């Protein structure tokens, strides 16, 4: 197949005048990438580039490359912000002499306006919940801003990655999706949008970028929604890179194209609701954690591109990760736990305890094929130890009323840049006022005062050692009495045409992916 497509490309080049349409890819300083998503929507207030991956914008901070959890480096800030008092007040010094792509100067008013626009109800911002801890943001002077939070929050650096827009662009309150920034972004970033057509966007290097002009001068992003079409255009040699699902990426790579992966903290797992006599039973929860074959799911469903998840914490969290908090695949041990808790096998193989049949429902969003496949694998592994899992493919509005009664195949890891954003909402007991959280936070509705105390301690402390110790405690405690069955962390797969560029190195990716991530997440730092 690969050999044939290479020959095909050769034939194509031979019929040069009509066929070999590769005018720009391969040329010295430009790249052509294909994305699965629609183009446009380049408005940070609506949530675009919330982790600072947007090429036209800079955040106050940016991520640094790492094989583990990335660190933060100052971008529009001049230094990492220091917390005052108990981590409720954060002052950020700003970079002088920076200009937006429309020529206007960057200062504290722009930072204040951007964060206020995100929090303004009139913007209907998609990321508003993620910034709910900010009570106030104000300019101290033209080159420093102060954030005052509703509660101490040590992970506040994660909220300083989002792109800053000029204050003029958000002067009129209104829905973020109706802002001109969506199609004509104005930022301080290393690239500028010069062409936006329905399926093609062109970004040109910002020659006066404060961080130095990027070496890759021109980035063309095509919108190619169909996975197979992207694979075929890649095989035809038209593209420098694209994102593809694991199995298709493996089939497409080869020859001059290599498969690259970025790890992510994007997890999938099953909630085990406290209110259900079976799923809420501590022995059933523990036994299922031993009964699921996580590596089997990774090999068969993810094509090998994933890692087992035992808690929301992945090994990328280094000191905050406790490698002893894990459940090896051990069916015999699962059965032993169930037998010990008097869940005894009935005549049809399904266990029964005190007249209660070991049976519960797991719901998954019907449009998500990955969740469907994982739910099927979970149900089949559970059945092997005598627990019957009924699956229900539903839309979110049908799932939601039953959160407390049935399990859900959940996903998480949309903000993986601190253990707090990664785990707090999933493991902390439900808040006294449920409307301040999402119904899917701690969908098992499990409450453990020890876990709560450690999560809270880590949230308030600015001492990395204290925080790491607290998170390790959380994991050890969780492993004794798990409230979920976490299954896998996903890897995101990309196919890249070989080139002489020195790329920027890997980064931990959030749930979102595409060609703004992958090997291109920090395109401005490529050299050769």
């Amino acid at each position, binding site marked *: 197949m690969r050999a044939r497509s290479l020959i095909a*490309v050769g034939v194509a080049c031979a019929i040069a005048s009509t066929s070999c349409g590769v005018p720009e890819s391969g040329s010295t300083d430009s790249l052509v990438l294909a994305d699965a998503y629609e183009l*446009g929507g380049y408005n940070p207030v609506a949530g675009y580039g919330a982790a600072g991956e947007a090429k036209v914008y800079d955040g106050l901070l940016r991520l640094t490359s790492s094989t583990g959890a990335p660190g933060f480096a100052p971008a529009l800030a001049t230094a990492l912000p220091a917390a005052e008092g108990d981590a409720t007040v954060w002052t950020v010094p700003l970079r002088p002499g920076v200009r937006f792509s429309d020529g206007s100067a960057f200062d504290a008013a722009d930072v204040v306006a951007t964060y206020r626009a995100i929090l303004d109800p009139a913007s209907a911002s998609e*990321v*508003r919940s993620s910034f709910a801890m900010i009570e106030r943001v104000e300019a101290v002077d033209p080159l420093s801003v102060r954030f005052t939070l509703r509660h101490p929050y040590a992970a506040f650096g994660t909220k300083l990655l989002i792109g800053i827009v000029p204050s003029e662009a958000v002067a009129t309150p209104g829905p973020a999706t109706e802002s001109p920034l969506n199609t004509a972004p104005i930022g301080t970033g290393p690239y500028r949008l010069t062409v936006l057509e329905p399926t093609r966007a062109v970004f040109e290097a910002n020659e006066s970028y404060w961080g130095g002009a990027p070496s890759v001068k021109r980035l063309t992003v095509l919108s*190619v929604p169909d996975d197979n079409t992207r694979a*075929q255009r890649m095989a*035809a040699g038209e593209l420098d890179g694209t994102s593809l699902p694991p199995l298709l990426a493996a089939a497409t790579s080869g020859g001059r194209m290599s498969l690259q992966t970025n790890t992510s903290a994007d997890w999938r797992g099953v909630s085990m609701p406290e209110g259900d006599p079976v799923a809420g039973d501590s022995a059933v929860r523990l036994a299922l954690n031993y009964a699921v074959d996580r590596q089997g799911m990774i090999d068969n469903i993810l094509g090998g591109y994933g890692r087992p998840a035992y808690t929301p914490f992945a090994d990328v969290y280094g000191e905050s990760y406790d490698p002893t908090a894990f459940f090896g695949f051990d069916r015999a041990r699962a059965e032993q736990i169930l037998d010990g808790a008097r869940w005894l096998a009935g005549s049809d193989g399904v266990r029964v305890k005190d007249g209660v049949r070991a049976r519960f429902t797991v719901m998954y969003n019907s449009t998500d094929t990955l969740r469907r496949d994982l739910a099927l694998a979970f149900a089949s592994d559970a059945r092997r130890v005598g627990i019957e899992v009924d699956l229900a493919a539903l839309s*979110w509005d049908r799932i939601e009323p039953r959160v407390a009664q049935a399990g859900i195949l959940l996903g998480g890891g949309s903000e993986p840049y601190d253990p707090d954003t990664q785990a707090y909402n999933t493991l902390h007991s439900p808040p006294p006022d449920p409307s301040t959280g999402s119904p899917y936070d701690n969908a098992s509705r499990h409450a453990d005062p020890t876990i709560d105390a450690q999560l809270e301690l880590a949230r308030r402390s600015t001492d990395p050692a204290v925080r790491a110790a607290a998170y390790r405690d959380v994991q050890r405690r969780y492993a004794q009495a798990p409230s979920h069955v976490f299954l896998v962390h996903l890897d995101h797969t990309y196919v890249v045409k070989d080139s002489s560029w020195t790329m920027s190195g890997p980064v931990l990716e959030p749930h979102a992916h595409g060609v703004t991530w992958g090997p291109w997440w920090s395109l401005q730092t490529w050299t050769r």
Partner: protein
Amino acid sequence: MGRSRFRGRGLRAMAGWRLVTVIPVLAAVSAALFAAAALSPFDPLVGYLGARYETTSVTDRALLTDQLGLDASWYQLYGRWIGALFSGDLGDSRAFAQPVSTLLAQRLPWTILLVAVAMGVAIAVALGAGVWAGMHRGGLVDRLVTASCVIMQGLPPFVVSLAAIAVFAVGLGWLPPAGLTDAGAEVGFGQVVRHLVLPAAALAVSQVPWLLLAVRESVSGNRGEDFVVGAATRGIGTATITGSHILPSSLAPFVTILGARLPEVVVGAVLVEEIFSWPGIAGAFVRSAKDLDMALLAILTVGTTCAVMLGSLLADIAVALLDPRVRADG
């Protein structure tokens, strides 16, 4: 003479009557769309928030619902939409974060180009091959054409499209696999023509079988009719008989089928645009429906309904003009 004037008047009356009914039909279709959306299992907030739906707090969801006006009853939303429409405001698409008018202006021409070329080719092929097959029924060509039509009829447009890319773009390298231009190139005549070939062919292939089989059927049926047999016995040549006797009366059923197939063409265009990443408006249809992006969905629905109704009206007019046996009072 008198008969032809009668037909002319009947035709005008029919056309006028049908045009008048377009307006209430469009009003009913759009109202039904808004009502159906209110009952839809899709939550517009899920479409709006995407992957962030699971992490958004209940308070913020209520706030977004309120700000975006998602909690209004369907007739309020419909009233607002109609009101804005009459003041010339098509609204903003939430899914694409762009004004609907911009989306239409950028994408509609590419869809029209694709559909027009594809249908032009489909009609030419169907007429040419259909008449030949009908005149030589049972011959080798006829059997070949009919068999391949039956096979093609069973192939969904996305299979045809992917196969076309695999064979002609990746395998043989004759044509570019997808897109409007080569990756990164500017839009230009030569570029667009080369990139149009595969998607237009794929869309044409999905329509040809129905049209071709209809032509073949009516041509071979008409061959046995009295007026053809009569002409042949009077010694009129085959070419003249085909051109002036068989073809005109065979065109009527063909045009009827053409009119009736218009909705299928729309569906075909949706799939073909998606697979070939063609920058048309049909590809936006599915997205707007999934996200309940009403501003875009409503205008696309109304536009498609309008196109189908006018298309079938044109077909009926053509039938009445082509076939003297049809009276235009239906």
